[in-house]
Each structure stands twice: as structure tokens, then as C-alpha cells.
């Protein structure tokens, strides 16, 4: 039996990195006594799959993982036990059955929609710098990692930037949709970091970023790997995760 779980990664667990989230969820499914199937070999690992990794600091409203079970269990029971076992900050939305042979969700992810909340920045200035960003054909940005610095063209990944709104407490908020391309994507923080070139000075580390939705669809040509191969118009995101057969079990509401 295979199940797909939709959950939220909120506060304070937004500060967990992807591998930490996978570890915590593994611990939670063991605590919940889910009959998880283990991989074969010297050090058997539970058969859990995670998708579209989020970095430490970014929350996710609708995240997914799949689990392969040894024995069938009632979906409501699975949802209830997991819901009780997850640490605070994780919220279970749904557990539903999917076909054993269903292709990996990763293949169908075309974009992520983020909400971004920055403080101490004028909403008008932020909006103008984003317009300037969007007017460019390419925007190169240096992604600095401990062992290497990689230059990425951010522009083709930015599919959509919503309206910037001023909020109370000196804050500005907006939504941004970023493309996933054969598993590659960019972080909203990089876009914010690149705005210094368009006249805006802000510390992207102070932005509160939540992924609101993972968008699914079919890519035009899955074998293409470079972001240039797919223009933003080539993807047709559909808002909802495609429903497979099987009944969903709603769990705890926020």
C-alpha cells in the first residue's frame, strides 16, 4: 500500500532543512507505528519519498511525502496517528492512497508559489525594483556555497510576480511563482538578493518566506535540462495536485 501525505511545515520548524524534515518525519511515522516498508540491504531504510526540498528558514503550506506500507491500514487511522506524532509546527492536511506504480511526484512539479514578507522596505520601491528585474532578459546571480560559488541566471525561473502590498508594521508582502525545471529551481531569497542591482537594498535573510503551493503539470519536453529550453510560457501549471484514485482522509484542521 502506498500513501501520499500532504502536510504543512510552519513555525518554528521552518528552520529545519530538508534532511532534518525527512528525519523528523521518519521519526514521526515510527512513533505513529505506521507499518513502513523497509528497503533491503545492510542498513535498511524506511521507504519514504520527499519532494521539492525546502531550505532551512522557508515554511511550506502544502508539502508532500509518499510512504510505502507493508500492510494496508485505514487512512483515517494513519492520519490520526501521524497527526498525534508530528512535532509542533507540522500540520497534517491529508493522507490518501495512491497506486503502487504511480510515477514520482517530482516529475510533475512545474513551479512553486511563494509568499514573501519583508520588513523595513518601502512597498513602492520594492515593486519598482521587481519591475526592473522582470524587464531584463537575464539576471545573473552568484549563489555562494561553502565550497563553490555558482552563477545562475534567475530570470527564466521567475514565472510570475504578484502585486506588492504595504502592510502594517513597516512590512511589504507579495507572491512570486518560481519554475522547477527538471528538478532545478531557484530560491526567492536569490531574487531578493539580486534586487540590489535594481536599486533596492534589503537583507534577504530577514525576509519571511513561505511556499504556499507546489504547482503540478506536464512539461513540454521532459528530456530538456537547461532552463533556456523551457520559456516561462511553455509550462501550464495546474493549481491542484492531480488526484489519483483512492479516498482522501482529512485530518486535523489548523
Amino acid at each position: 500500500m502506498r500513501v501520499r501525505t500532504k502536510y504543512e511545515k510552519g513555525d518554528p520548524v521552518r528552520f529545519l532543512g530538508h534532511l532534518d524534515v525527512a528525519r523528523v518525519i521518519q521519526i514521526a511515522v515510527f512513533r505513529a507505528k505506521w507499518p513502513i516498508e523497509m528497503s533491503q540491504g545492510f542498513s535498511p531504510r524506511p521507504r519514504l519519498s520527499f519532494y521539492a526540498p525546502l531550505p532551512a528558514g522557508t515554511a511550506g503550506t502544502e508539502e508532500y511525502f509518499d510512504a510505502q506500507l507493508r500492510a494496508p491500514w485505514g487512512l483515517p487511522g494513519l492520519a490520526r496517528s501521524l497527526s498525534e506524532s508530528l512535532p509542533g509546527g507540522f500540520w497534517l492536511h491529508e493522507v490518501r492512497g495512491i497506486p503502487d506504480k504511480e510515477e514520482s511526484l517530482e516529475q510533475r512539479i512545474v513551479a512553486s508559489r511563494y509568499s514573501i514578507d519583508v520588513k523595513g522596505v518601502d512597498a513602492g520601491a520594492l515593486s519598482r525594483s521587481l519591475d526592473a528585474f522582470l524587464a531584463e532578459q537575464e539576471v545573473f546571480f552568484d549563489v555562494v556555497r561553502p565550497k563553490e560559488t555558482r552563477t545562475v541566471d534567475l530570470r527564466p525561473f521567475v514565472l510570475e510576480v504578484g502585486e506588492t502590498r504595504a502592510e502594517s508594521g513597516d512590512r511589504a508582502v507579495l507572491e512570486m511563482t518560481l519554475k522547477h525545471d527538471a528538478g532545478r529551481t531557484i530560491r526567492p531569497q536569490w531574487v531578493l538578493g539580486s534586487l540590489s542591482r535594481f536599486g533596492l537594498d534589503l537583507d534577504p535573510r530577514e525576509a519571511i518566506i513561505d511556499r504556499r503551493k507546489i504547482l503540478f503539470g506536464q512539461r513540454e519536453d521532459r528530456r530538456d535540462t537547461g532552463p533556456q529550453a523551457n520559456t516561462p510560457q511553455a509550462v501550464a501549471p495546474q493549481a491542484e495536485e492531480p488526484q489519483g484514485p483512492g479516498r482522501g482522509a482529512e485530518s486535523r484542521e489548523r
Partner: protein
Amino acid sequence: MFTGKHARGKASRLPKIQHRSLSWDELKRELGKVEKPARYTGGEVNSVRKDPAHVEVRFALAFPDVYEVGASHLGSHILYSILNGRDDTACERAYAPWPDMEALLRRKGWPLYTLESFTPLSEFDIVGFSLQYELTYTNVLAMLDLGGIPLRTSERAEGESLVIAGGPCAMAPEPLAEFIDAFALGDGEEITGEIVDAYKEWKKSGQPRSALLLRLASVEGVYVPSLYKVDYTPDGKIASIAPVDTSVPRVVKRRILPSMETAPLPCDPLVPLIPPIHDRAMVEIFRGCTQGCRFCQAGMLYRPVREREPETVDSAARSILGRSGYDEVSLVSLSSADYSRIADVVTNLVSTHPCGARVSLPSLRVDSFSVRLAEMIGSSAKSGLTLAPEAGSQRMRDAINKKVTEDEVMDAARAAFTAGYSHIKVYFMVGLPSETDEDVLAIADLVHKIRQAGRDLGRKPTVVVSVSGFVPKPHTPFQWEAATLPEELMRRQRLLRGALRGPGLEYRYHEADMTQLEAVFARGDRRLGKVLEMAFRKGRRFDAWPDRFVRGDWLDAISEAGLNVGFYAHREREKDEAMPWEHLSAGVRKSFLWREKERSEERVVTADCRSGVCAGCGVCPDFGVGVALAKGKVAG
């Protein structure tokens, strides 16, 4: 130039601490700037948050090392569970912030807070530190300072937190004497609650802080350093340590639980959300070790051996696995292969656990039985096995009472290679008392033989040799010995390194300079408090981490305080010299320790008291306790 006078200044103290809990919204925008922010956000599985309005005492457990180290510490888990098990107490936790987080806290003027409720340390009635290692002492000072608590006992006003400390270093805690209001000696299970009770009674009485300290001094096992006066001889040794009040005990005796069977065994362990250094469930199978290795402080400090019954261990292991969500349980002790029922317990757990839980055993002995055990638990895909012969020559092993022969080492190594291990890690010490170059080179000989044994068995072995410098520790037979000078330690390390080149050999060593500093503080007296404060003001933190250790700052602090490294680290003590911990009794008699030192010089081995032969250390008769070995069996 930084001088001693300026070091006492308050320039680096935080701006006035905001006496309120931090808000999550404030933190959220800043934590993205530090490494591993989840160290500072709490929310762990099985963490406990109580409403402070509904308790009488708020207790903060403070661990002076980084989160991943502190969150693995079994003793802290036990105390957290005991304290939160009381209706009248809320226990929360704080860990030493890594320097990037300390900088953020100082930049923002934020206090060090507990992870359960984001409350500043200064808001707690009692702040209790765990002292595991001497090189974490400046972190204690940093945590007090960041928490908004005055550093020194003498500076704390009425209404400020009571600062206490426990753990192995509390048995010789004089360098921290001016900073800690009270030390809890020995097993913490009972004494911690008694301290809370004494605190509650005092709070109700409306008496001044000084009355609290006097009241605590009457709790068995509590040492209140400000109630003792230390005098020095003209040449700087201890002349006397005497209580300042007749109601204060002359000697404070360590607390010893009579039985582990009746001791609390918490089965809802805290499960951190980022992997701690020991990322598995833990069950303590016994306390104490009676091997009697003469260099080993833990072996002296936790006597006598008290085993849990196998049924207790088995059911606790199952319960902890289920309630933590871990898939691996570690059967913890100072020498797990010594446990009377180890094979039963391991076999039963491995064969009957429904999810095929893995079992791990830290601290295995050097013998083929231990290797068979390791094989039984199929440890980590045959990747590695650790053996600790500690010394290379039989002469040296006899001197330190490490009761293992070369034949046994080789049997263990062959058993490991036969079982399929190809990677063997061996631990040794250099700088032991009476050690010669011949003894050092004997390590290399033994390592070569181990590698050859692997080759003879058709393996392609890797032998990782890990060598640390010997530090004489209080309450051990070697407490009188001089620590070897760092230059000499390095020379011996180089000598060994030179003899250990070649394929299949890896060499790792502990920094000789860190060893020296550890030797200063392990047997230090109160005058070193000044050094700790100066080192703290110079920015010393996390000096147990080799890449953060700055020797120059420490040497400067020691000389600015008018003290001398050699006096503390490299001086042989006289037989009758009063030690800085003369007034603290671990139960092992000084006469026994001296006899063991003499036997070491004569290369005479002393038996393990599990064997039934009493070595006469004095713990059992003096403290009214006894060795308790498991009798039962697990139903297989």
C-alpha cells in the same frame, strides 16, 4: 593592552536585559542569519512546556556546550523528566549559543533564552549547569552573562536566580567556585529534587539569599563554595579549606543511589529536530565501573557498580523506541560488555523487536567476547569497530591497570576481521606516568600487528590510531602526577607518527595545548576563577573545539592573573598535599588512591571487584552501598 584591571570591567556586559519573553516574530527575521537556526527554536518531540503561573519553581537546565552535544546528554534527559514530573516545577532548557548566535544576541540586546518558552535565564528561580568537561567553563560564564545573571555569587542580589551545577567536574569544581552558588555532587536523581524543595521552603520563609545558601549546605551532597574559606601556604599550595559556619559540613559527600532498579528511568526522551551527536535512544544499563583503570576519573567517581535487571532494560528499551520513534537504541554504560546479562538482553532485543530495531553498544572492552557482541548487533554495516587498549606495552597497561593482554587485543582484532570488519579504530594515550619512548613505540608495534592480522585474514584493513594526551584527574590514583609538557607530548606524538606511516594506517591526535589547559583546570583551585573571567572577556568560547581554541588568550589570562601553568599542570603533588577538592568526598579513600599509585609504580594489577575480590576502595563501607549485579533473565 588588556590588563587584569580592565578585565573586571563591565564593558562587555549586555545592555540591561529586557525582562520579558522574546517574541517569535522578532526572532524569526533574525535567525536566518545564524548557522543551524534550529538549535535555537526548541519544539522537540517530548519537550515540556508548562504555564509558569501554575508552578512554584522555574528551573532552567543549562548545558555549556552547543545544542547537538547537550541534547544528547542522557543525564540532562533524566533530570528534565524528573523535574517536569513534579507538579510544582517547570523545567526548561538552554544551551550555549554558538559564537554567531551570541553575536546576534548581543547586537540585538536580546537575552539568552530557554527553548521551551523563550524566557531569559534571569527569569528562572534556579539555573542548573551540567559540567562535563573543563574546557566548557567559559561557556558557563558566557551563558550567565547573556542570560542577564551576574557572573559572581557575590554580585547576585536578592531576587536573582540561584545558580547551581552538577556533573563529574562538580567533584573538583574550584575554578568555578566564585561563579556557582551551589554544586550538587554525585547522582543527580534525588538531590535535584531536594534542592528544589529547599528552595521552595526558603522562598516561603521570606529570608534573605544568604539563608538559602545555608539551607542548601545542609542538603546532603550540596557544596556551597562561598561557605568555605581557602588558605594558601607561602608557596601557593592549599593550606586549609574550612567551613565558615559550624552548621556547614567539613566534608561534602557525593550522593549515591543505592540501586538503579528503583531509580527513575524516563521513557519519553526528548527527540531533537536536528540530529544530535548521539542520534539514537539510550537506556542506561548500569552505573559505575569497577575495572579500576587508574587514569579514569569516571571509574572512580561512579562507584559502586549498580546494574539494572535485564527485564527492566528490555522493557525500557522497547518503550523508549516506541515513544521516541527512534529505530536504534544504545545500551549505555561505562563498559557495556561488562553487564552481567548483556548477551541475553542484546539477543532478545535484536531478535524479537517487531521493527528490527538496531542496538548499539558504546564502550566495548578489548576482547573477543566484545567483538562477538558487536557482530550480534551487526553494528553499522561492518564499517567500523573501536577498541581501546589505551597503552601499547604490557608494562604500561599494567601500570594503568588496563587489564588486557596483547593476546587479548590480537584475539579481538582477529575476531573483528573474521567477522568482516575491515576498519578498526584503536584508542591510545601518551604522556602516561613513567612512560618511556619504548612504551610509545610499543603502540606502533601493536598497531602493525593488528594490521598484519587483518592482511593474514585476507582483508584490506584500515587501522585508525587515535592518540590523546594523558591528563591527571582528581579523585584518581594519578591525581598526584605531573602532566607531561606539551612540547614533550608533541615529541612523543611525532615519534609515534613516524613509526605509523604506511598503507592502511591513519593517525589522529588530540592537541597537546588543549591537553595542557585541561590539566590546569582539572586540578585547579579558586584562584583560577580570575583566569576564567579574563578568558571569557577575551572572547574565549567553545575551547573544547580544536578550531576555536586560542592558546595565547589562555596563557595571557593565566599570567595576567599572576598564576603559573606549570604549578597547576606539570607539578608532581606531595603525598600529603591538600588537594583543592580535599573537602569533597567521592567515596574512594585517599589512602586507596595512594596505594593504587604505588601499585602502578610496581606494575601490580588490581582486580575488578565484580570478580568478588574487594580492592578496598572504601565506597561500600563508608557510604553504606554495595555492588549490585543483575540476577534475572529476559524471557526470550
